[in-house]
């Protein structure tokens, strides 16, 4: 490109020295103008994307929002730099205003400020509920019930939020993790797994701060040679805890010397592919996720399970629900095994119902501290996991805990070899008030649904009815392919599936418990759910759309509209998410347009209060600097004469016209196209005029409305259209050079070409942006133009509806042909974006263009010869 311009100047020799300098200035200015327009397009595009994201509430992480903001700022700053170069000394104060707005934007991102760091570890015996912000609720609540109620909980300690911050900051991990999230910009499973792997490596490589390492080892030494369970205790709102819980790992059977390694693993689990998806779906800020950890002695349990102090579905009932399995309680929590189930009357404290399951396996702790799966046989499968007396002790204990917190509880427990009941975890329980209809009771069938039930007698886990396409999820890959609004079908109630629930219409699971983690999350999201639906995977595979009735435990074929209406429940409350809030706050400094009137006295750098204002200001001033009367280039601008040429102006930077030779014209005069000697301009003009334009396609009503709304929503586009200067179309020509800046209504276009005898310095470029139709149609239009150009050797790039294409290092004839094609496309792709909704029209235009262009190129050599351009 360097030599291209040298060659260009070479062609301009012969001008008086002063004039030549002025011409060079003009070329420079025109190049700055081109770069400014390109930055302007990008800034507006990014703003539109951010606005869309805010309106749709679509999931995206805070890292992405921050990246977008900085990219907007970068484009705007680029516009300022270009404008300052176009007119040195006039607009320098823009930078101050820009800096100030950027500072405001940064403020909008800042989370709540954090106080000084506290201790890295806190012993269980010192923990209370009030320590939740340091220890996370999981561990703090255990400390609370131990101290206040004398409940037995495991010995151990918490690694605090302060420890997490210390680790992140002392090692620079926080910056590094943000950077990794930023550069791995993707949402597919593969991309997110790559990201998770990179973050895990970074966490593993970061040295543990010495004071943290020492504090942990001191606690371990105090507790002796025991085996630990190192559990995640993430910080977040209470309501988030359940959703989160399934995503993070616990390390079991950890030796004292391995506790910090296990701690790293727990932190890493916060960035797993599913956890990140969950965080994004929930609009949480990944830069504010904090992981505390509980390090607790492993309980060598003979039995364990979960207590719900009220039935989670149908909270009106006066019962405590207890689930139990032999061995460690992990099998209940993760839904991998059937469990015994008991009801206890809250008033009398007596067992009212017992349901002993056939339990095939149990988990036990080996002497080395490992967790091992064992098969049950010899009648043990059918033995109750615990005695009725244990059940009643548990219920009484659970009710004390409920009373203390004043809210129904979800409690994980274990019974050790000495018969002691140890509480491992307690947290608030989400309860649905409506009672489910017992599954054997007849359900009134409406006409619509009669005979369409394909599976009945499933266990209701969350009430209501919803329909959707049924999609089976078995592997992690299935999870990422899961479409929004589908019915989630799975074999086991794995907690990881909770990451999908915000997007699912309903949930059907073959095995698991209606009181398990997944059921709890389904109720939280108010998604109808059936857990305990034997045969569902086989029966439902490939049946298409089904309606899941989470109240009567039945699944119907197709979409049962009446039933869905009848079962309608208030939607889970929509809350503005943390990311949404940050986005709204930052948009206040980006998108509002205050500078609407270029004639107003406020239209100056000091009046710019948003990024959009600066964009608008720079654009307006750049157009003025480029084309206003007193800024005209040296040789002046000629108006092109001729019926179809009246809207075009022409600037000759040397050798592009015969005007100088004749010495007859001055800048107030018009010249005819026959006076143009620039071969790339002749080719371009020929392409523009060779095939008459039939006018815009008749817009369909919806496209027309879309034009109107676009214009109303994007004043920057409208402003340019209204502006007299912007409406002008300028050719800048030399003997082998041509640059066209043109604007037709909403469309903005730059075409440039150099066509000399040395292929090494030849090029053609094309930039095209805008349009009145909706973004998808404009994108299709750009795609169509790009295809046409790529066939002719251009490298084309599309960003939204903007197209950038370049052709380089080709013969003079190839550039001339390219210019003719560009001229044709410039004239004939105007407003076809309106028709782009219809795939048939895309094909129609593609064929039409190919035929026209072929014919056009045949006539080109003659045209250039007649004009005297051909050698």
């Amino acid at each position: 490109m360097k030599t291209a311009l040298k060659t260009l100047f070479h062609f301009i020799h012969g001008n008086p020295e002063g004039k030549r300098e002025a011409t060079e200035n003009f070329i420079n200015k025109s190049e700055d103008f081109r770069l400014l327009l390109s930055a302007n397009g990008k800034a507006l595009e990014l703003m539109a994307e951010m606005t869309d994201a805010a309106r749709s509430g679509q999931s995206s992480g805070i890292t992405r929002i921050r990246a977008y903001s900085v990219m907007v700022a970068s484009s705007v700053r680029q516009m300022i730099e270009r404008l300052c170069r176009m007119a040195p000394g006039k607009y320098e104060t823009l930078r101050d205003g820009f800096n100030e707005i950027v500072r405001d934007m940064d403020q909008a991102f800042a989370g709540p400020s954090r106080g000084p760091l506290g201790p890295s570890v806190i012993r269980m015996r010192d923990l209370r509920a009030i320590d939740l912000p340091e220890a996370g609720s999981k561990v703090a609540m255990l400390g609370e019930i131990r101290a206040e109620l004398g409940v037995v909980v495991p010995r151990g300690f918490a690694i605090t939020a302060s420890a997490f911050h210390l680790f992140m900051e002392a090692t620079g991990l926080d910056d590094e993790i943000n950077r990794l999230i930023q550069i791995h910009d993707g949402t597919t499973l593969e991309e997110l797994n790559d990201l998770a792997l990179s973050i895990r490596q970074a966490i593993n490589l970061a040295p543990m701060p010495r004071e943290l390492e020492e504090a942990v080892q001191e606690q371990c030494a105090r507790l002796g040679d025991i085996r630990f369970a190192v559990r995640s205790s993430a910080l977040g709102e209470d309501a988030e805890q359940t959703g989160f819980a399934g995503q993070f790992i616990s390390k079991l059977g950890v030796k004292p010397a391995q506790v910090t390694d296990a701690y790293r693993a727990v932190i890493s689990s916060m960035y797993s592919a599913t956890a990140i998806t969950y965080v994004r779906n929930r609009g949480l800020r990944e830069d504010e996720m904090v992981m505390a950890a509980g390090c607790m002695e492993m309980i060598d349990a003979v039995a364990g399970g979960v207590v719900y102090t009220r039935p989670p579905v149908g909270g009106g009932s006066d019962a405590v629900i207890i689930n139990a399995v032999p061995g460690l309680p992990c099998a209940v929590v993760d839904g991998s095994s059937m469990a015994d189930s008991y009801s206890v009357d809250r008033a009398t404290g007596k067992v009212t119902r017992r349901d002993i399951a056939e339990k095939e396996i149990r988990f036990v702790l080996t002497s080395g501290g490992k967790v091992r799966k064992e098969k049950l046989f010899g009648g043990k499968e059918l033995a109750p996991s615990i005695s009725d007396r244990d059940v009643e002790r548990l219920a009484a204990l659970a009710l004390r805990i409920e009373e203390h917190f004043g809210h129904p509880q979800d409690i994980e427990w274990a019974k050790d070899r000495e018969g002691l009941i140890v509480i491992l975890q307690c947290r608030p329980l989400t309860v649905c008030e409506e009672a489910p209809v017992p599954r054997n009771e007849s359900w009134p069938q409406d006409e619509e649904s009669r005979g369409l039930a394909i599976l009945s007698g499933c266990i209701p886990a969350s009430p209501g009815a919803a329909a959707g396409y049924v999609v089976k999820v078995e592997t992690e890959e299935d999870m990422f392919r899961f479409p929004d609004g589908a019915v989630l079908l799975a074999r086991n109630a794995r907690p990881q599936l909770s990451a999908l629930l915000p997007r699912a219409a309903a949930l059907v699971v073959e095995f698991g418990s209606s009181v398990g983690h997944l059921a709890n999350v389904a109720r939280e999201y108010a998604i109808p759910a059936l857990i305990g639906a034997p045969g569902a995977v086989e029966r439902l595979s490939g049946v298409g759309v089904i309606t899941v009735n989470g109240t009567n435990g039945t699944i119907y074929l197709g979409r049962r509209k009446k039933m869905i209406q009848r079962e309608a429940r208030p939607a889970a409350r929509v809350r503005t998410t943390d990311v949404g809030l940050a986005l709204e706050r930052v948009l206040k400094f980006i998108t509002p347009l205050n500078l609407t009137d270029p004639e107003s006295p406020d239209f100056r750098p000091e009046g710019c209060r948003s990024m959009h204002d600066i964009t608008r200001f720079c654009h307006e001033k750049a157009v003025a600097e480029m084309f206003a009367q007193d800024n005209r280039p040296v040789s002046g601008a000629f108006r092109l004469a001729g019926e179809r040429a009246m809207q075009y102006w022409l600037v000759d930077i040397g050798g592009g016209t015969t005007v100088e030779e004749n010495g007859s014209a001055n800048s107030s005069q018009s010249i005819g196209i026959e006076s143009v000697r620039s071969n790339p301009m002749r080719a371009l003009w020929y392409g523009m005029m060779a095939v008459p334009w039939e006018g815009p396609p008749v817009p369909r009503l919806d496209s027309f409305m879309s034009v109107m709304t676009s214009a109303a929503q994007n004043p920057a586009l409208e402003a340019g259209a209204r502006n007299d200067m912007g409406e002008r179309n300028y050719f800048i020509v030399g003997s082998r050079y041509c640059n066209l800046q043109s604007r037709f209504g909403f469309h903005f276009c730059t075409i440039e070409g150099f066509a000399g005898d040395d292929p090494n310095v030849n090029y053609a470029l094309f930039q095209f942006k805008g349009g009145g139709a909706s973004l998808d149609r404009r994108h299709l239009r750009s795609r169509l133009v790009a295809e046409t150009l790529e066939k002719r050797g251009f490298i084309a790039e599309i960003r939204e509806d903007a197209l950038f294409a370049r052709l380089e290092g080709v013969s003079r004839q190839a550039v001339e042909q390219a210019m003719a094609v560009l001229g044709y496309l410039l004239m004939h792709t105007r407003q076809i974006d309106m028709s782009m909704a219809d795939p048939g029209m895309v094909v129609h235009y593609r064929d039409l263009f190919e035929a026209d262009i072929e014919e056009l190129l045949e006539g080109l050599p003659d045209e250039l010869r007649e004009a005297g351009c051909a050698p």
Partner: protein
Amino acid sequence: MKKIRLLLVDDEPDFLTAYARRFKRRNVEITEASSGQQAIDHVRESEFDVVILDVMMPRMNGLETLRRIKAIAPDLPVIILTGHADSSVLIEGMDMGAFDFLLKPVGTDELYFKVLDAVRTRHRGQP
């Protein structure tokens, strides 16, 4: 066509290799530097048309590297390309005369066109 001489500065070897491979097909001659100091040595010893510079590097960071490059070759265009969405780096870098500030990940085409823009601007003899 004359090759563009590009100095690519990044401490991440993966990044260097990936971009170097993609650019070599495009008439660009790439010199790699994996630290700020190495970049400065290269700029002292050879001629370049454009520099792509990372920000977060151990020892000498990108902004310091930029300052020193500008002291040696004031009109050598430098494109900052960083994984760090940090507005203060944007402002400081542009104040020091960076040609542009881009965030990773950037498509090869977009980066290539930026490189062409930067090279063009330089050879128009602008400061």
